[in-house]
């Protein structure tokens, strides 16, 4: 029973990381940079990463990230696969996180911005969730695409399998904003910024484009929530829709940190024997006062 409960808890957490959430639901995954626009010669940022209800308060679970520390037992040493952290430097090369730690409520790591320009910091998770029947028992499974082929019987009865592809991003710039790090991978749901993500000003419209597998993600609902909702009664969320080209425009009501989320359900899984796919995109943006 305990195992089941633990499993369910971890399934819920993994789902909260991997699955699209509407603004009304609890548990949001986020990363929060200490700063997004930086000057000076020896530039560092610290990024917090967590799964919580309120934005951006670490009060529920740390985001599990590969290679940045060991989660304490209470915060879930068990459970699903940690997200992969990719730090793309302004010249397109990869940078390594420093001083990583996973605590009870948040994960944290530093990035040393040794180059001038814009860095893209992404936490991605690509896995498969599956369930099937063995007699009266429902088997639940999750893991990588490779493990799915080995561990899940191809003839499993009533097999339900979904590929979960999630991407969380933040952008930080030392000096002048640049665009090389913004290049798309072409897999899953991604943001193709028209307005530079480190050039956002309250009251000024910002345009972005969402792409799914490199193609325009048309007619998609995008949710934008201002941070700080712990101290206000209304969530203050905005709902936008992408046009035929995947574009949408946000006019930020105030300066501050904003959380953006969009998701797609479709049948374009890249895994054999898996029909369903859920692709999710989340980003945190800092908007400055004019």
């Amino acid at each position, binding site marked *: 029973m305990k195992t089941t409960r633990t499993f369910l808890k971890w399934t819920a957490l993994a789902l909260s990381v991997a699955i699209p959430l509407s603004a009304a639901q609890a548990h949001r995954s986020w990363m929060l940079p200490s700063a997004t*626009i930086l*000057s000076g*010669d*020896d530039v560092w940022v610290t990024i917090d990463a967590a799964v919580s209800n309120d934005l951006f308060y670490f009060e529920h679970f740390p985001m599990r990230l590969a290679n940045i520390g060991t989660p304490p037992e209470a915060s879930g040493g068990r459970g699903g696969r940690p997200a992969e952290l990719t730090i793309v430097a302004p010249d397109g090369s990869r940078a390594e996180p420093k001083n990583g730690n996973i605590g009870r409520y948040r994960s944290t790591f530093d990035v040393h911005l040794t180059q001038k320009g814009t860095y893209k910091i992404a936490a991605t998770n690509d896995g498969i969730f599956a369930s099937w029947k063995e007699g009266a028992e429902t088997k639940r499974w999750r893991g990588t695409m490779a493990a799915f082929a080995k561990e899940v019987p191809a003839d499993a009865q009533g097999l339900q399998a979904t590929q979960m592809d999630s991407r969380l991003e933040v952008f930080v710039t030392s000096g002048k904003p640049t665009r090389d790090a913004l290049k798309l991978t072409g897999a899953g749901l991604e943001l193709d910024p028209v307005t530079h993500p480190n*050039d956002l000003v309250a009251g000024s419209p910002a345009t972005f484009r969402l792409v799914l597998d490199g193609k325009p993600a048309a007619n998609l609902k995008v949710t934008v929530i201002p941070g700080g909702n712990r101290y206000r009664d209304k969530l203050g969320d905005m709902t936008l829709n992408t046009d035929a080209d995947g574009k949408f425009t946000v006019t930020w009501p105030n300066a501050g940190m904003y959380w953006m989320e969009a998701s797609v359900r479709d049948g374009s899984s890249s895994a054999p024997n898996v029909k369903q796919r859920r692709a999710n995109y989340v980003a945190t943006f800092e908007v400055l006062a004019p």
Partner: protein
Amino acid sequence: MRALVSITLSGLVAGPAFAADMKMSVEIPRLAVAEYHRPYVAIWLEKPDQSFVGNLAVWYDYKLKDNEGTKWLKDLRQWWRRSGRELTMPVDGLTSATRAPGEHQVAVDLGKAPLSGLAAGEYQIVVEAAREVGGRELLRIPFQWPPKAEQTLKTPGKDELGAVTLSLKP
């Protein structure tokens, strides 16, 4: 080295097509606060649509070791977005030390960009101040260039800036 010379070269330099003159002063207010640091100040020229024309002065902690003073330049956030992030600091003839409370002349060199060869039209002087552990303030003074008549334009600051004065002569 706090003494500043108001450089008004219009009579001496043949560069500008018109022999107009501009003088400017910025007052840094004395503040009764527990922890006081002199503000970072950027002064620049823009068009009425706020498009950037050129810098006149940047006052920051340029003498700190390892160029550490540049870390806070982004707090002059409007200047940083319009110009600062494009520059490699320090910049000769532009950057200098922060100023103590009091009135300070701003060295305006009419023989140099952005004023040298500045097309006739409407402009604004912008003064932005940001103080460590303190606030930020931004003031604008619109003016016509070249000036048609002698005039003194003055804008009072509220918190982080005192009066900003712009004196123009045809």
